[in-house]
């Protein structure tokens, strides 16, 4: 059998992802504090690689990883050619438009300035609303943008809303819900059909 490669997003999703494989025959023993990025299961049938969340889809689309575990937020942002095989049910949160209380999110004749880490997704959302926007791409601390006047609104993933609250912001509109997904390379899916179906089963799919 060919060795399959599964790419995991470093951090919380990887821990939860690895937990799914616990008690299956492809469990791996990996030291979370180690800086190693590649681990192989005991039978050497599966190789796990750890990468930045935003790179997982690229690895899978290009086929260097056959499967990947990645947040739906990245799938929506990247819009790539991969199969989205399973909702793994963890890492739940949602996309939301946030800003100051009672703020207007429809300004038909105005351009709304929106800070986000997800520019492609935001463009699609506001195109559908026929609302013109100026997108300000930030890489972190998105909540800061409206507070210091960089943007009118933000679009970000919200889990509890605690960070928003601490910065005086509220959710103005809920958008897509997000959770961890199992994605597959299209060619690899076909070439390793039986193996991938078995892995889906192990992860609780049917």
């Amino acid at each position, binding site marked *: 059998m060919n060795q399959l490669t599964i790419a995991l997003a470093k951090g919380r999703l990887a821990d939860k992802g690895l937990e799914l494989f616990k008690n299956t025959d492809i469990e791996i023993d990996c030291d979370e504090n180690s800086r190693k990025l590649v681990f192989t299961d005991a039978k050497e049938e599966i190789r796990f690689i750890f990468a930045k969340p935003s790179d997982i889809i690229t690895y899978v689309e290009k086929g*260097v990883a056959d499967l990947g575990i990645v947040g739906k937020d990245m799938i929506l942002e990247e819009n790539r050619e991969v*199969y989205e*095989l399973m*909702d793994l049910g963890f890492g739940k949160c949602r996309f939301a438009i946030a800003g100051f209380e009672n703020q207007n999110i429809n300004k038909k004749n105005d351009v709304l300035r929106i800070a986000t880490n997800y520019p492609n997704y935001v463009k699609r959302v506001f195109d559908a609303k026929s609302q013109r926007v100026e997108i300000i791409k930030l890489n972190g601390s998105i909540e800061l943008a409206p507070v210091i006047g960089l943007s009118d609104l933000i679009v970000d993933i919200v889990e509890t809303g605690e960070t928003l609250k601490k910065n005086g912001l509220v959710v103005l509109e809920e958008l897509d819900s997000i959770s961890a997904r199992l994605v597959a390379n299209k*060619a690899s899916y*076909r*070439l390793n059909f039986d193996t991938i*179906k078995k892995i889906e089963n192990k992860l609780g799919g049917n």
Partner: protein
Amino acid sequence: MGFSSIEEELRVRRLRKDMERMVEDYFESKGFSLIEPDIFLNYDDFLLSNYNFDSTKTIKVFGGNSKIYVLRPDITLNILGKIFAGWEANNPLKIYYNSKIYSNSPDGSIGQNYQVGVEFLGEEALKADKEIFEIVIHLLENLKTPYVLELASSLYLDSYFADLNLDMKDEKTVKKHIRNKNKHELLSTLNRLGIKGILEVVLDMEGNMEDVINMARKYPTNRDMEKALDYLDSLVDFFKQRNLMNRINLDLSMMPDLDYYDGIVFKGYCQGVAKKIISGGRYDKLTERFGKRVPAVGFMMDMDVATQLIYRGDNQ
């Protein structure tokens, strides 16, 4: 493919040229004749038959007559125009091409892709399809790498959707989830729309050819779907005789990349390359647009992927 030196580039070019010669000789030995596709296509014509095609990927050019043309993003459509301009369709026609297609790359540059392929027109469907599969399998076997041939029938789902009569936006959403094999979101969309039946299980209709056909037979179907299943059934023996059943993966949920396919559709994949190397199918309905409906089937082989494979084999 990027090259580290001119020597390497020349070596790869030579390998590809050898491969091209081999393929061209083989096509000619099977009675196919070479045709040169035009490089520019009328943009409106292209969109008309490919409404799902991502038009941002096409390279547009303005003609002197203020019309918009695209650098050919696909070859079949291009050569059909040429053929029907001067063909009476009295006898079957077998042609092949060795050419390039163009598209916008995500980085904004213009991407090129070498393809060889054949079109077989005017021959009875099952006979022509078997001949085409014979050729496809010969080419795949020749690459000396384990492969899988993904088989589907676009008639199966297309005729189901025609009966469903969904509004365009909902149909697009449902099809998107099927295309992405996103069972979770497909089921929730179907639930929202109150749709039950085949679409709820269509993502499970893939795998061993006989198993999938048997599974599909358990669901109520319309006449065209029945026809699609019967047709696939009639190919089972063909693949069995050649001992190829373990190489065939039937996927009734497969949505073709191009809208003009209306029957059998197939893609070939080789172990170790994350791209399809072969892609083709039947497109009888499309020929109507050129004035006369004739049975038509064709496929292309991605020469860039094939070159990558033989180059890798050569280095081992």
